[in-house]
């Protein structure tokens, strides 16, 4: 990890706000609790949309499933906020943890996947699929990538703790 990153991270750790995040274990438990709820909202909604695009639960029409996306975004935002506050609370711990950075990479890729979904017009192609109708192969690829990446995010998130201190301080 380059020296300038280390100095920024150490500075964050020295701030009063950072100390505040870790001052109470109940506050920390609250952050983590909301983080799990956000992840459940995200997986419950996006997961169902992805499964339908992959051809499961075909009795469901696709367009109403898309109405669930705001809930997914809510879940993601809850996690962005709680995750950000957690990072500010323990910046050194997260910065030197390889699982944390892999998780960030997975989230980035999931975001790119979402952009692909809309910008390639795939969304418009599957938006009006009714019950029993199959999605095109590229839509299935996006759905499979989405499921894979979000599960990777969950798994990597769990491995942050045991993989502490896996990146060297330079």
């Amino acid at each position, binding site marked *: 990890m380059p020296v300038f990153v280390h100095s920024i991270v150490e500075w964050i750790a020295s701030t009063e706000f950072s100390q505040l995040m870790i001052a109470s274990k109940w506050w920390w438990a609250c952050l983590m609790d909301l983080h799990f709820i956000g992840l459940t909202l995200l997986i419950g909604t996006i997961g169902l949309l992805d499964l339908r695009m992959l051809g499961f639960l075909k009795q469901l029409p696709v367009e109403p499933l898309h109405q669930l996306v705001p809930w997914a975004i809510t879940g993601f935002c809850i996690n962005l906020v709680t995750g950000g506050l957690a990072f500010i609370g323990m910046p050194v711990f997260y910065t030197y943890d390889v699982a944390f950075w892999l998780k960030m990479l997975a989230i980035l890729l999931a975001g790119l996947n979402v952009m692909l979904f809309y910008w390639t017009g795939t969304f418009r192609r599957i938006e009006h699929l009714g019950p029993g109708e199959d999605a095109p192969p590229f839509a299935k690829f996006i759905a499979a990538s989405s499921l894979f990446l979000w599960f990777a995010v*969950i798994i990597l998130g769990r491995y942050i703790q045991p993989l502490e201190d896996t990146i060297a301080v330079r």
Partner: protein
Amino acid sequence: MAVPLFLRSIEETGLSTWIRQSDSPFGFYFILVVHTIGMASIVGANTLINLRLLGAAPRIPLVPLKRLFPIMWSGFFVNAISGVFLVIGYPTKALTNPVFYFKLLFIALALVTMQKIKNRVFSDTGLNEIAMEAKGRILAKWSLFLWFAAITSGRLLAYTYTYLQYGVHS
């Protein structure tokens, strides 16, 4: 109240020791990941049904959502099994913590509510979707609350235990 000795006996078994101390990627954290994924499945799917019953994303047809129940039950069984292994790894930590028993109680009640939703809302083919929503509304609210309570109790386990292992105070 003294801590029962049988908890130490469990901790002294090969399996328990392996779960706690193994360097294998399939040790404690892997079991935790499986537990997290199971939780995301059952609570995610259940939350989706609950939100729909409460009127969110109203164009999603309710009847096909009955197909989510096998996913939810699979999630539960995965968690029952992974949960047993987690307790085998840290029996004193779990079984001397009152919060753990609350977690089990909330899960039991949430499952009862889930089954009631299946029987009263989804299994009565004479109901139209408006009637299904009306019948399921209160159960859906209870279900949301109970799963929230279960997740919160689960999260709090990491912050409320008295003994990490037999004879080892937190």
